[in-house]
């Protein structure tokens, strides 16, 4: 008589071999779900090869953004980052932005910081023309259709001025701008430990 436990062990070991391999950093979907022709007219996506056709990437959880009980902080369940929900509308230069975010105490935490450019990009939804408007629909308030600072310095060559990366929360352009210029701040915390 076969040992039933041995057989079950064999069966379950076969099961584990079939799991798919996740990348260290699987990319999220861009958000774009529609397709258009070059006149801007909406068209069916099938076969176009456009972003809205393939929609590559990890699905956004739903709901995606969840506010905390204080009303001051909001968690992005897509990335596990926590953002200031209603950032102030003061303009700051880059150094002021860094200092402000670093010194922030909110929602019982003081480990806030200025987001890096990859973290800031994670807020961008490619299906909308107005990023501030999208974030507003997700629970944020006070977001401006203007440049938001990242903590990432522009390491590119040959600029006479010191630049840092911003994302414009109008369309969502990713550009380097003068660190002594003005921009807005949405501070972030979380996800500092790295996975292996």
């Amino acid at each position, binding site marked *: *008589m*076969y040992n039933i436990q041995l*057989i079950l062990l064999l069966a379950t070991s*076969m*099961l584990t071999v*079939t799991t*798919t*391999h*996740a*990348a*260290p*950093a*699987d*990319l*999220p979907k*861009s958000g*774009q779900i529609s*397709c*258009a022709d*070059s*006149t*801007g007219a909406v068209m069916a996506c099938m*076969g176009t*090869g*456009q*972003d809205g056709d*393939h929609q*590559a*990437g*990890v*699905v956004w959880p739903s709901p995606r953004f969840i506010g905390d009980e204080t009303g001051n902080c909001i968690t992005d369940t897509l*990335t*596990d*980052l926590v953002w200031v929900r209603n950032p102030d509308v003061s303009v700051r230069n880059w150094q002021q932005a*860094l200092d402000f975010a670093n010194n922030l105490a909110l929602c019982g935490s003081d*480990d806030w*910081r200025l987001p*890096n*450019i*990859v*973290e800031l990009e994670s807020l961008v939804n*490619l*299906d*909308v*023309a107005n990023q501030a408007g999208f974030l507003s629909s997700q629970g944020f308030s006070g977001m401006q259709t203007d440049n938001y600072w990242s903590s*990432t*310095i522009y*390491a*590119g*060559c040959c600029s006479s001025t*010191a630049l840092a*990366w911003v994302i414009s929360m109008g369309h969502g*352009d990713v550009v*380097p701008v003068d660190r002594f210029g003005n921009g807005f701040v949405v501070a972030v915390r*979380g*996800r500092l*430990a*790295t*996975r*292996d």
Partner: protein
Amino acid sequence: MLNKKHLLLSLVIALNLLLAGCDNAPAVKDASVGGSEIENENGRVSSASAVALPKTGQTLCFDAGNVVMACTDTGQDGEYQAGVAWPSPRFIVDSSGNCITDTLTNLMWARNNSQDGNTFIGTWSDSLTMANNLDLCGFGDWRMPNRKELLSLVNYGASNTGVDLMNNGFNILLGFYWSSSRVVDSSAEAWVLILINGVMSPRSMFESSNRFIPVRAAQ
């Protein structure tokens, strides 16, 4: 004579056959993959998220005069370096030399700017079609990358992100590269990455000298 022993064996065989069938099904890449619980600097355990964002590549900190400085207490990207570490090696070229896989994102990219005399360049619409119809390295499921995928190639710690890719195995020219993500408003523009400085900005869909790097999901 059929007994319990035979029945159990049959069940095990049937189960494995079933699983083998699932393996051959096309990989549905929309399943949530995500973080196991991790402990951050404050000792707090993070809940599982759908994605783990990668590091930017920035490792240094700079003062107002753009001179390298110690990172401690600056709050700059180079101090926290938040995000998933890049595997090393990160990019792996295949045996044909025509394809290169990013082990950070599990995306496979065309390594060269052309294939069989067919250059990956054109208007947005022509480029989308070219990418869709491509046969390369034994695969036929190529496409144009979306904005998020194209941005994943940028090394924000490099002085020239295009040159950095070349140093990591790509054989491509500097220039403007299409994404499959259009700019959602009335103008006919798509998001384009400048593979020199890393800028991502709208460009007219009718520009005919922009390039693209075909991509597919590696397994």
